[in-house]
């Protein structure tokens, strides 16, 4: 066990926005919407329990000890509780505040520190990730991943397990728009993300092509940097703000009317720049403007005039990526879009809105709980009896695909943009 961490005896008002904690009226209606409570069935792993810990910390009724940190860490940050909450608690902001406090005041074990630093040093930088994955690509070409996995330490082995096979991307691309969009068509920019552009760039390209085909003017973003969500969710507030500022600048220059991302976590992070940078006079206004332009791909495609579609006969179940459904409130649009494809039958899975355990880098930092959630998700998917699981977030895609792979399931996991491209081939 790690040495006892800093135990502040004074109230730590900075644990989170203290007044925001009082939005919670302790009714407990959030519990069954919380993935970790559903698994452990313990109150400290429920949103109400975590808020109670934050409140107790803020009031100096307890210190920040290993147990409190453990229960904050275990929160995947899915925000399912925000959807369930009748009282309008801003749980996302509360847990982000708690994570900042933890990183500033708590010394983690060596392995934990190593893991978190590695994640923070690699994932936000596409060229670093590409470099790291280059040898693995070679390994995959000869089908030697299982051999490699067997000789590497457990932790690395588990991480490798989550990676999709790195074969040359064979996912079909949507046809490019044949007619140039009118100059007065709304301009859309697709934020390509960091991990997504390395591991799932077809989703970005397909998003752009589908938007182009739907009549939008697609503008490019230069430079693209990580949205900062990864940092925000792991208590690194200053770098999160650095990324946010860079993106605000770039997105403002791109001059788009709408901003979309194939990763819903990035969409929500951008949608919250306005809040994140509200105290920086130089950026506050631009950040707010940028945030107000975040849209989701399916809603934009749905707004465009319908085009004749080819038949694509299959059964599809739709997984609600947490930040898309709980962060942006998008539920119906992707389903409507899927249902508009002739031949597609939508079969709903139970708990489609429950986190799959991917949650940014959560499946790397909390592999055991992430795996429990993946199993539960896979059970629900298999029970639904679909040919495809469609979702709109690459993280969920890797996580669910890895679990289905382990089970030898034939069900294919496809990003919405890729699915629409495939269906239009």
């Amino acid at each position: 066990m790690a040495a006892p961490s800093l135990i502040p005896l004074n109230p730590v008002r900075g644990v989170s926005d203290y007044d925001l904690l009082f939005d919670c009226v302790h009714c407990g209606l959030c519990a069954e919407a919380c993935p970790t409570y559903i698994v452990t069935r313990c109150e400290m792993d429920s949103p109400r329990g975590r808020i109670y810990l934050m409140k107790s910390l803020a009031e100096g009724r307890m210190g920040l000890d290993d147990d409190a940190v453990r229960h904050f860490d275990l929160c995947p940050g899915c925000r399912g509780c925000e959807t369930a909450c009748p009282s309008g608690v801003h749980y996302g902001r509360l847990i982000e505040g708690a994570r900042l406090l933890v990183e500033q005041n708590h010394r983690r074990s060596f392995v934990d520190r190593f893991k978190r630093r590695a994640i923070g040093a690699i994932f936000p930088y596409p060229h670093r990730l590409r470099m790291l994955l280059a040898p693995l690509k070679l390994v995959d070409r000869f089908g030697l991943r299982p051999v490699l996995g067997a000789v590497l330490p457990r932790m690395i082995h588990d991480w490798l397990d989550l990676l999709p096979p790195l074969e040359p991307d064979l996912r079909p691309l949507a046809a490019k728009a044949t007619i140039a969009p009118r100059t007065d068509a709304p301009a859309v920019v697709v934020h390509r993300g960091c991990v997504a552009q390395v591991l799932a760039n077809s989703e970005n390209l397909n998003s752009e092509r589908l938007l182009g085909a739907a009549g939008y003017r697609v503008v490019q973003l230069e430079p693209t940097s990580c949205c900062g969500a990864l940092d925000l969710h792991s208590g690194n507030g200053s770098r999160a703000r650095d990324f946010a500022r860079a993106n605000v600048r770039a997105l403002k220059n791109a001059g788009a009317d709408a901003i979309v991302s194939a990763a819903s976590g990035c969409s929500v992070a951008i949608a919250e720049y306005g809040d994140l940078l509200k105290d920086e006079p130089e950026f506050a206004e631009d950040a707010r403007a940028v945030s107000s332009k975040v849209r989701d791909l399916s809603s934009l495609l749905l707004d465009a005039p319908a085009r004749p579609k080819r038949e694509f006969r299959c059964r599809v179940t739709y997984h609600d990526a947490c930040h898309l459904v709980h962060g942006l409130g998008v539920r119906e649009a992707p389903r409507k879009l899927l249902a508009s494809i002739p031949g597609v039958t939508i079969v709903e899975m139970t708990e489609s809105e429950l986190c799959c355990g991917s949650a940014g880098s959560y499946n790397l930092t909390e592999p055991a709980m992430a795996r429990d959630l993946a199993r539960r998700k896979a059970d629900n998917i298999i029970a639904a009896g679909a040919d495809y699981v469609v979702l709109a977030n690459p993280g969920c895609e890797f996580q669910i695909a890895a679990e289905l792979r382990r089970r030898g399931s034939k069900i294919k996991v496809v990003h919405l943009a890729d699915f629409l491209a495939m269906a239009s081939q």
Partner: protein
Amino acid sequence: MSTSTIDRKLLDELREILGADGIVSRATELKVYECDGWTVEKSAPDVLLLPRSTAQLSAILAALHRRGIAFVPRGAGTGLSGGCLSLNAPAMICTSKMNRILEIDFDNRRVEAESGVVNLHVTNAVKSKGYFYAPDPSSQVACTIGGNIAENSGGPHTLKYGVTTNHVLALEVVLPDGEVVELGGPAEERCGYDLVGAVVGAEGTAGIVTRATLKLMREPENHRTLLAAFPDADTATRAVSMIIASGIVPAALEMMDQLIIRAVEEAFNVGLPLDAGAVLIIELEGLEAGLTTYADEVAKTANLAGASSVRLARDEAERALLWKARKRAFGAVGRLAPNYATQDGVVPRTCLPRILRVIAEVSRRYDLRIGNVFHAGDGNLHPIILYDEREPDQVRRAIDAGREILKACIDMGGSLTGEHGIGVEKLGEMPLMFSPDDLRVMTELRHVFDPMERSNPGKVIPQPGACVEVAAPRRQVPI
């Protein structure tokens, strides 16, 4: 009352029974168990036990019994009266891991479930076949069947269907010494003393319920849900009596006053009339033939009573939205103030206009905002008293205002609680409603199940000799 404490040897024994993930004994983790939805009073247990089966639960109660240690049962902790506050009970036993639905018997319309099953999950498990479990408290997305049984919970639809006790056929209960007993049976009609009825509503003072056989109801063929707006609460409550007097008993008849309408509207945007002084949600259900006639009749009566508008929910989506707003109204009030205390008095339906005037007067005198959202059809009030726990004076005023309202309910021939239970919140008011003889007989009945008073001590029945002040806040108000 227990003076024994939990030592290492006992912890080891309990861990042996439950496994490492069935026991919580660290202070930080126990902290979150120091209150339920009644947050005025706080007290954490010394140990939390999470059994997974009746056998485990029986074994831990036997172990506690051997050492004379008292315990408090807990389900999801959504109660509003402090029923699972750990008072002189070092051990808390939470049924959250006992959440299996054991058997569904559609032919006999019943379901057998463990006590930790979430209320709504019962309905979810049977709705594809057109059935549902009737008691529908507002917390039904999270509260457990065991908690419902302890508090004899109701919900909007109790007007037609009755409360929990009307839906429980049989119970498996672990008595405080660990003995497992079966009460009631699958048959709809029973003879002899109604022991199931004695346990339902006993608030965990008769041992811990581990399993229940519940009745299932058939979904009605159709619904009509009306939203009637009134210029003020007085007119709305008079309309309630007129509707029932006209011979129509709706499935639900709910009222929300202006404060609640505004909170709900801000939270859910249902399209409630913001200028109304009060609204009624009236739900009729049954065979399609005749429903329209009844709905017209109700609308006519509402208009006659002085409604400013009456509107029919157009479709299932609009109906669902209305109910969502109603069921989450309590939480929506959280947007108006940091804390609230929900009262739960009952008055005869015809006294509704009078009691609402009393509540308005209390609100003025104590300088506290009080909203009303309640089951008007059966006279079950839920005045929601808003306060800020950071101001000790407000906390005191909130408690006193609540008491005064409850006293007025009793004076009008009503009751202290419709569905939230006595818990610790209304302990001090029990003597207002019951004579010392009544309370003695209740204690004697309790002793049949729990002779040593170790199961949820300090709840429901005030200790003899204790004065009304027993429910005064025991906790330290954090400054």
